[in-house]
């Protein structure tokens, strides 16, 4: 049997403890794999450039995606717009390994996300808190990530979102069923998903950090906050020495509880991406606000 939820969520379990890197060319993909990435995200522009250039951001050219798939042996992910189920169908037809229904692209539907259950290919979706994570899981997401604020090189939003998910789950502890139903109503989450979170003491699917991770210490910070792995978008290929930085972020993710190792790999990396202060971004340009 192909495409069961077990094999869809199972691939995410194989990615745990690893780093998924944004790449825009086959050459980037090769560097990412050489550095130890556990998967790559094939894109036309990294979030920092999408933010700078503006305009409607859509699914990448299938030729680009195919050339990246042909270059590496690790899983290849690609993004579709929120609610754009035809872009998702196209990505599935290309044989992509994971679809990111992503707020980094311009949303195609301002009310509905994709019904992800009928797809054989698994989906990862962003969230800012437990309610949002639970809604995406109910729609069939096999993996969750924080939204953070992509393309900023600023980890503050990813921290906020990871802590919000943790706090949301902590709050469920000791609730009886009636209280769980009330909580579900308040945070707009399906009660079945909350009951599972309560039982497990964590999200029922793998949960990565994303959005603003730029340094080895950023990656280790997110791991120590309890996420299962990290996405690094603009942070690698917008830095001075991508291969060296990528290797350092991979090592810091595995050895996230070893400050001595993080110190060693953080030395002499050259300049990180420039980075943006969140309050300097106009409210309507915040990517994390997309998705419902």
């Amino acid at each position, binding site marked *: 049997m192909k495409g069961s939820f077990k094999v869809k969520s199972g691939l995410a379990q194989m990615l745990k*403890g690893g780093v998924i890197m944004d790449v825009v060319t086959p050459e980037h993909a090769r560097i990412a794999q*050489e550095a*130890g990435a556990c998967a790559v995200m094939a894109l036309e522009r990294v979030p920092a450039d999408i933010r700078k250039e503006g305009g409607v951001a859509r699914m990448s050219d299938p030729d680009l995606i195919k050339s990246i798939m042909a270059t590496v042996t690790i*899983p290849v992910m690609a993004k579709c717009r929120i609610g754009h189920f035809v872009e998702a169908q196209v990505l599935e037809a290309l044989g992509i*390994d994971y679809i990111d229904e992503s707020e980094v692209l311009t949303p195609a539907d301002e009310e509905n996300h994709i019904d992800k259950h009928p797809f054989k290919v698994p989906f990862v979706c962003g969230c800012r808190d437990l309610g949002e994570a639970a809604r995406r899981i109910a729609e069939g997401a096999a993996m969750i990530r924080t939204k953070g604020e992509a393309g900023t090189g600023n980890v503050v939003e990813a921290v906020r979102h990871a802590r919000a998910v943790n706090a949301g789950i902590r709050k469920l502890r000791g609730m009886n069923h009636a209280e769980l139903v009330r909580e579900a109503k308040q945070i707009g989450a399906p009660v079945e998903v909350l009951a599972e979170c309560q039982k497990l003491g964590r999200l029922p699917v793998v949960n990565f950090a994303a959005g603003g991770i730029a340094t080895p210490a950023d990656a280790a910070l997110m791991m120590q906050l309890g996420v299962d792995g990290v996405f690094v978008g603009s942070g690698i290929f917008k830095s001075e020495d991508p291969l060296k930085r990528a290797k350092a972020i991979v*090592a810091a993710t*595995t050895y996230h509880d070893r400050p001595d190792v993080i110190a060693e790999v953080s030395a002499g990396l050259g300049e990180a991406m420039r980075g943006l202060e969140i309050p300097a971004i106009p409210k309507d340009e915040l990517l994390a606000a997309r998705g419902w």
Partner: protein
Amino acid sequence: MPLIGVLAMQGAFAEHVRALEKAGARTRLVRTREDLEGLDGIVLPGGESTTMTMLMERVGLLEPLRDAIGGGLPTLATCAGMIVLAREIADGMGDQRGLGLLDIAVRRNGYGRQVDSFEAPLQIAGMDGKTFPGVFIRAPLVERTGDVEVVAEHDGHPVAVRHGRITALGFHPELSGDLRLHREFVRLASGSR
């Protein structure tokens, strides 16, 4: 109670820890050569074999691990772990080389990409006749076997092989909820002292 190490470079190591503890073992995450000391067995989990191998090389864990397993440490390898143990790797990354301790040739992602990942019941030799739930995720395809015993096949290809104290599986018992293979491994490790 035996102490089983679980290689924790990257991948589904926490799932193995849970299964091993339910099966009656103590566990230790293995990230440095020092972590190998005093183990009764080791699990090489699923994940990305390129990521795991490169990290082990960088931190000087690959050679000590090869010595330990080559020296008879009971080993359970799943999916990427099987690739890491294999003597020949096809469709790997460039010059991907692993431990080379198991006389098999594997093709990475030999069953296809993620959309071809599947579940299938397996008949495993010596296992009370009841099938085992096989969970295959971007699994390696065993294309050749040499000095190993094949203990399970699917569609005419070996999916579980054994050699001495090494058991290598192309599928994921740690995701199946079935503890029989972990229990058997814990028994083997208990007797290794």
